[in-house]
């Protein structure tokens, strides 16, 4: 049982009091911001990045991970009680969850969602435990060409799968790559785009960019949005679903776990897409699809299970390949880099305590969240009374003062404000901020592996196609880049007069 040894050691790491405490802090914060509409998990993690400077890497990631999957639990509560999705990944829960609440079954809906979330999350951790070492050992042979291809594909997928115009998301990604080049060129030591500023000589830190674009940008954007007046939440009683209801929802929970797990692994996938896919699947499978939208328990259980499974499994590409699958994972990547840990295939072997500590902390986190969402749900329902008007200045001040503590300098604070403006304008003009941050994080890896590969290939870019894995990845890259354009061109030719389809897009809240 050599394989299980590091896994068990990981539990020893989790059970250290500090780590347990940070796990608890993480899931409570996650649950809170999930309940409060407005700030999403990515924005919260960005704002709290300075908090992780003074703790061990494993502790920091345990907390940040807790925020991420905790938000998936919390987002359900507002969806069910107020018809306001707390998170983008809980939007589809609104459809049936709110109807159940209206029929006096709010408790049941929340209970089913919590149990589904727990099952989905736990199933995904088990999947992660077995799949991650396999992927990592496969990726150990990856050289610079494979990493070039992988990073390119990752950025492209995240940009094309995001909501909104694909060209705009790609522009945001290009801007992120460009920002990553500011500072000293690692190969020649020459300064790039520093304009003589000493502050820029070492490049732009990841934290002010993330805090500005995700954190402050989101806060400013929310100032404009008039939040629909919150009604008094319906009463929550009896969160324990009956055996019959559990049986009715068990299929949806099982399918949601599997679907979410696999969608979470894919770059650009993640909790939001998983929840929507699960809702669609449940509706398609149902014998009476007309029940959906009128309080079908499967319509709550399935998506809530899937979004948790996906939130967990999206750690796999980050921890095994060093490629973040979505914007939140890009923040984790940045947080690890700050701590001097480079996520990648060597992580499982070289830093098993970190790897298994983080993975196993999710079991504990999920148990804590289950407790918070079943017996303690009433407390979180009360938090709905906190008004956005009070929350906004508090989060803005946390951001500014937190930014100061990065380097004890006002330069970072000014950078955060500048990137806050950039983030706000990007959202206003329909540019997704996610691809920018992701590309910024991957920028250095991409440039250095591309230049190293070109050195190996003697300057011949065709060399990338001479290696099977990088060739395959690049072919996929080209397909992903070209297919949608071809498709839309063909569709236009076929039906020039047909009315434009109006897909209901759900805006990703970061």
């Amino acid at each position: 049982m050599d394989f299980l040894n590091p896994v068990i050691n990981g539990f020893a790491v989790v059970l250290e009091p500090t780590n347990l405490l940070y796990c608890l802090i993480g899931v409570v914060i996650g649950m809170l911001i999930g309940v409060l509409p407005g700030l999403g998990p990515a924005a919260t993690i960005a704002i709290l990045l300075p908090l992780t400077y003074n703790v061990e890497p494993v502790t920091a990631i345990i907390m940040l991970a807790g925020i991420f999957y905790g938000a998936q639990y919390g987002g359900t509560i507002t969806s069910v009680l107020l018809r306001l999705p707390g998170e983008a990944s809980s939007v589809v829960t609104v459809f049936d969850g709110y109807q159940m609440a209206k029929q006096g079954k709010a408790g049941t809906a929340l209970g089913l969602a919590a149990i589904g979330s727990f099952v989905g999350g736990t199933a995904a951790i088990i999947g992660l435990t077995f799949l991650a070492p396999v992927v990592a050992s496969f990726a150990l042979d990856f050289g610079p060409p494979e990493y070039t291809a992988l990073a390119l594909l990752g950025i492209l997928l995240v940009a094309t799968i995001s909501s909104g115009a694909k060209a705009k998301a790609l522009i945001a990604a290009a801007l992120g790559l460009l920002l990553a080049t500011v500072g000293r060129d690692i190969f020649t030591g020459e300064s790039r785009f520093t304009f003589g500023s000493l502050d820029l000589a070492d490049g732009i830190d990841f934290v002010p960019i993330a805090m500005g674009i995700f954190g402050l940008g989101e806060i400013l954007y929310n100032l404009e949005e008039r939040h629909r007046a919150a009604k008094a939440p319906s009463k929550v009683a009896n969160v324990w679903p009956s055996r019959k209801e559990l049986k009715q929802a068990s299929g949806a929970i099982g399918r949601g776990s599997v679907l979410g797990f696999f969608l979470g692994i894919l770059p650009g996938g993640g909790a939001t897409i998983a929840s929507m896919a699960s809702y669609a699947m449940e509706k398609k499978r149902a014998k009476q699809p007309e029940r959906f939208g009128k309080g079908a328990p499967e319509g709550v259980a399935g998506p809530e299970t899937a979004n948790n499974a996906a939130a967990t499994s999206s750690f796999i590409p980050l921890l095994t390949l060093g490629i973040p699958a979505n914007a939140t994972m890009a923040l984790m990547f940045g947080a690890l880099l700050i701590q001097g840990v480079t996520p990648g295939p060597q992580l499982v072997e070289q830093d098993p305590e970190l790897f298994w500590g983080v993975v196993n902390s999710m079991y504990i986190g999920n148990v804590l969240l289950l407790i918070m969402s079943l017996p303690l749900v009433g407390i979180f329902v009360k938090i709905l009374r906190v008004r956005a008007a009070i929350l906004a200045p508090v989060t803005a001040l946390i951001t500014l003062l937190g930014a100061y503590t990065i380097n004890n300098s006002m330069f970072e604070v000014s950078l955060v404000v500048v990137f806050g403006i950039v983030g706000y304008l990007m959202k206003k003009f329909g540019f997704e901020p996610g691809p920018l941050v992701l590309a910024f994080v991957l920028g250095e890896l991409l440039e250095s592996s591309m230049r190293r590969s070109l050195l190996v290939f003697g300057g011949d870019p065709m060399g990338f196609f001479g290696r099977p894995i990088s060739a395959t990845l690049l072919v996929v890259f080209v397909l992903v880049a070209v297919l949608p354009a071809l498709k839309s061109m063909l569709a236009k030719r076929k039906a020039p007069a047909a009315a434009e389809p109006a897909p209901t897009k759900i805006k990703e809240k970061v």
Partner: protein
Amino acid sequence: MIPVKETSADPVAEDDLTPEQLAAQWEDEKPPAAGPLANAASSLVVLGVGIAAVILSVAMGLGTPSAPQPGLWPFIISCVMVALGLFQLIAGRHNRDAEKFTRMSISPLTGLVTLAAMVAVMPLIGFELPALVLCIIWMRFLGGETWRSTVLISAIVVAAFYGIFVLALGTSIPHLF
């Protein structure tokens, strides 16, 4: 459970929207979309940044793929950016994803001004007073809280931040007291 009529236009039946109607309602409540001018302007900004980066990259020296100079990689990215900007300028004219600046946009602008002012005066007079002013402006004027709760909560918030950042964590944040 009383059966409710299916009349979506009636505000009384607002609670009984189907998912499709609900999605449509959210779509309606979104801020108005900006016109082609805003789309063109954002594309031009992208083009401008891209072209400037191309020029600066060329100035840094390109070299060859086997012996690259510092400018080669930024040059590649900025060329992609220029291409995407051009594409967006032409193909994205009628996109509906940009939002119009409305009277509500004054709120983020006010917020931004207070934030910038705070950054400017913080090194001089510490964070407490600017933070208090920022809280008051955001809660009273941007958030519509009453004066009573504004002043009370602002004072508590600033005191809490003082406690956390100065007393508990001992950070070197400029402070007056």
